[in-house]
C-alpha cells in the first residue's frame, strides 16, 4: 500500500507534481486515509474555521457550523445555505441565451443554437468566481447536482460517525 505525505498531496492538488508521479498515483490504490488527508489540506487552505465535512465542487465545501447545521460554503467564505437546498438558488447567474452572448466564448458557428440550448453560469456573490456551468434546454429547471448522504458516508465508509 502506498502512502503519500501531506506535502505530496498538496502538490497534487495544486497541480505541481510531474505527470509521471500523478500517473503513478492515478494507477495505484488510494491510501486508506486519503480522504481525511485531502480534507485536512482543504481545511488549511481556507481562511475560515468552520469544519469542512466534504469537498462539494470546485471552490465549494459542505461545512459544519457551530450549531451543527450543514451549509454549502465557498472558499472565499460566502455561505449558500443548507446543504439540503440547491446552492445555485443563492448564486448569481448569467444566462447565455442569445447568439451574441454565446459567441463571446465560442468561435462563430461553433457554439450552440440558443433556441435549443442555453448556457447558465453560476457565480459566487462573495468573490465572483465561476462555480458551475449548465448546458440545458431553455426553461429547464435548475439542476441540483447532488445531495450527499454525509452521515452514512462517515459512518459506513470512514467508520467514524459524526456526532449529531
Amino acid at each position: 500500500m502506498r502512502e503519500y505525505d501531506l506535502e505530496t498531496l498538496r502538490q497534487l492538488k495544486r497541480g505541481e507534481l510531474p505527470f509521471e508521479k500523478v500517473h503513478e498515483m492515478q494507477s495505484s490504490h488510494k491510501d486508506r486515509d486519503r480522504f481525511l488527508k485531502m480534507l485536512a489540506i482543504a481545511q488549511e487552505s481556507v481562511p475560515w474555521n468552520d469544519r469542512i465535512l466534504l469537498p462539494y465542487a470546485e471552490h465549494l465545501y459542505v461545512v459544519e457550523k457551530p450549531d451543527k447545521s450543514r451549509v454549502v460554503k465557498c472558499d472565499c467564505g460566502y455561505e449558500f445555505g443548507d446543504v439540503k437546498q440547491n446552492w445555485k438558488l443563492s448564486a448569481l447567474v448569467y444566462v447565455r441565451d442569445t447568439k451574441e452572448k454565446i459567441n463571446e466564448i465560442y468561435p462563430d458557428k461553433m457554439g450552440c443554437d440558443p433556441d435549443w440550448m442555453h448556457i447558465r453560469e453560476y457565480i459566487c456573490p462573495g468573490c465572483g468566481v465561476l462555480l458551475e456551468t449548465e448546458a440545458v434546454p431553455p426553461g429547464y429547471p435548475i439542476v441540483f447536482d447532488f445531495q450527499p448522504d454525509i452521515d452514512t458516508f462517515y459512518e459506513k465508509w470512514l467508520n467514524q460517525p459524526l456526532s449529531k
Partner: protein
Amino acid sequence: MTNKNTIQPRILAIDAGGTMTDTILVNEEGQFVVGKAQSNPEDESIAFINSLRDGLNYWNLTLEDAVPALASSIYSGTAMLNRLLERKGRKLGLIVTAGFEDYLRMERGIQTYLGYSYSDRLHLVTHRHNEPLVPRERIFGVRGRIDLFGSEQIPLYENEVREAVHKLIDMNVEGICVNLLHSYVNPEHEKRVKNIAQEIIRQRGADTLLFISSELYPVSQDFARLNTVLVEAYAADPSRDQFKRINRKMRELGANHELRVMASHGGTISTEAKELARTLVSGPIGGVVGAQYLAKELGFENVVCTDIGGTSFDLALITGGQFTIKTQPDIARFMLKLPLIEIDSVGAGTGSFVRLTPSSKRIEIGPDSAGYRIGVSNPVSGLSTVTINDCNVVLGYLNPDNFLGGDVKLDKERAYNAIKEQIADPLGLDVYEAAEGIISLFEDHLRNEVISRVLGKGYAPENYRLISYGGGGPVHVAGYTAGLNFEDILVPSWAAGFSAYGCACADYEYRSDKTVQAQIANLEDNITPFAETINSAWRELKDRVIEEFAKSGVKPDQVEFRHLLRVQYVGQLNDVEILFPGDEIKTAGDVQIIIDRFEEAYAKMYSRSARSPELGYLVTTAIITGVTESEKPKLPTEPLGPATPDTKYQETRLVYYKGNWEQANVYQMDHLRPGNTVYGFTIIESPNTTFVVPKGYKAYLDAHRIFHLSPE
C-alpha cells in the same frame, strides 16, 4: 577457470546504463567476466575504461595487454533513450507538407497511452499527450504535393522553403528535419528542399545539420517516419561524439578494430551508420540473438527465449532458426518505423511488487517493481513493499548470503515480517504458505504468457526448446514450464550474462528497408513492372548497404547480401517477411518462388484457411541485409566427467516446496562438472543467478556448460 596467464580476451561487450557501465569480456574459450563502473554520461569513455579495467582485473590483465588482443567490441547503452525520455536532445526545426504542421500536437491517439497497463489504457484520465520533440513554432509547412503513386500534383513552393529555412536558422536550430508526404515513392521534393537548405546554410555560414526522411527511412506511414527521423536527429545522432571518444580511447590503447553498436534488427552496425536510431533499444535483443546463435551451434531450429530480469519477463520465438522482425515498433511512447526483433515484454520480474487489492484482497503482482533494489530483504533498499525476491528468500530458494556473489546481504527476517504483515496476516495464511502461493501465481502468469505465445502462433511446445536466462530465469524456469512438454529446457550456466553474450554473437550486419507497394495478381500478368519496382529498390538498398560498409573499409566482395521481401495478400494487413533466394527477379519462375515462399510462411504463421490469394499479392517492402565476417565467442566445450557430482562440495539447506519443508542439496555452479546430473530438490548457486531444480526434476550439465532440465 583455466590458467589465467593464457587468457586472451577476444570480444568486448559494453552495456552503458544510466547508473552503471558494465563490460563483458569473452575469451577464446567462451568464458567471460563482467566489469563494472559508475556511468559518466558527460564522457562515456571514462566509465568505459574504468569498467574495462575492473573486468580485466579478474584475469590479471592490463588494458595495454588486453585491448590489442580484442577482435571486436560491441556497444549497447541507454544514453540515447535517456536523452529522449528526459527531452534533452538537440534543438531541431522541422519542415513538413503544408497542412501537417500539427502532427506532433495531435500525434496518433495511441501515443497517449503506449506502454500502459491494460487498466490504465481503459482509464482515459491517465492518457496524456507527449511533449513534442519540436515545438510548434519551429515547425513549418511548405506547399507542394507528391501523390501516393509518386507523381507531382502540386509543384514545390520553393519560396516557402527558403522562408522556413531562414526563420529556422534565425532561431538557432542545431538541425532541420524534412518529412514530406509520399517521399518514399518519389523523393524529388525532399531533395529540392535539401538543396535549397544547403545553399542557405552555406550562404549564412551556419552549421545546421539536415535530416531528410527519404534518405534516412524511405518507408510509408508518414507519421511513424517523421517520428523516426526526429528521434534520429534528436536523440540518436548526438551519441556519435561519445562513440568517437570511445573509439579514440580504444585506438590509443592499441585496438585494431572499430567499435560497433547493437542494432534493433539483431545485427551490429558501425558507429558511422546513417540510421543510428536503430541502436536506441538493444537490451533484450542480445538474449534473442544469443539464443539464435546457440540454436545454430547446437543444431536445432525452434526456440522459445525467456528472460527474467528484475523488472520484466521478455519472450521471443525463434522458428526455423529465425526470429521475427516487426517493422512498426513503439519505443518510449513513439510509433516508429524501424526493424525490431519481436519481443514481448510483460511487467513481471523478480523485483515485481506484491500487494493485496484493498477492496477484494486479491494478490496483485506488479506492474511496477523494485528493479535493482531487490526487495524488502535488502536492508539498504529503503523499500517496504514485498517483492517476488522476498518470497524466494523466505522459501529458501535464494541464499541471503550469496546474492550477487555476496555483494548484497539479504535479511530473511525482514522479508518474513513484511510478507507476514502485508500478505499472510490479512489473508489469514501461514507466511510460507502465502509466499509459496505468490510464487506459484507468478509462475502461472509467466506460464500463460509462454503458452499463449507458442499456441497463439499455431505451434506446439513439443516442437520447441526453451532457453531460460536473465538473473531470475533459472530460479523460476521449472515453475513456468511445468506441464508444457517442451522438447528440452536449456539453462546456460552463464544465464545472467546471456544478453551481453548475445550481443557478442551478433553478426556485423546492415539492414536497409524501403517501402515499394508492388502488386501482382497472377503469372499471366506482365511481370515486368512488378519485377522492376522491386529490383530497382533492391539496387538502391544494396548501394546503401555497400556505402555503410565502406565507412568501415569493408569491400562489397566481403559482404554476403540477402534479398528479402515483405509480402501480404492484397486486402489483408499482415505482411510476412520472406527470403528471396536470388538477387534479382528475372522470370515468372522467380515470381512463383516469391508466391510459394510467402504462402508457406503465411500458412506457418497464421493458418492455411486464412489464406486469400483471390486478389493477388502485394510486396510492401524490399529489404537488403549485408553480413560480413566477424568473430564470435566459441561455445565452451569441456570433457564429460562422472554422472554424479562430487559430494565434497555438496551442502544442504531447507526449502519450502508444495507445502512441505524439503532438504535441498546446494552446489556452487563452478563445482559441477560436465556430465553431472543432479536430482531435485537441488539448488545451484552462482554469483549472478540461482538455478532451482525442484523435486521430481533432474538437470544434466552438458559439455557446453548448459543445463538441461527435465522431469525425472
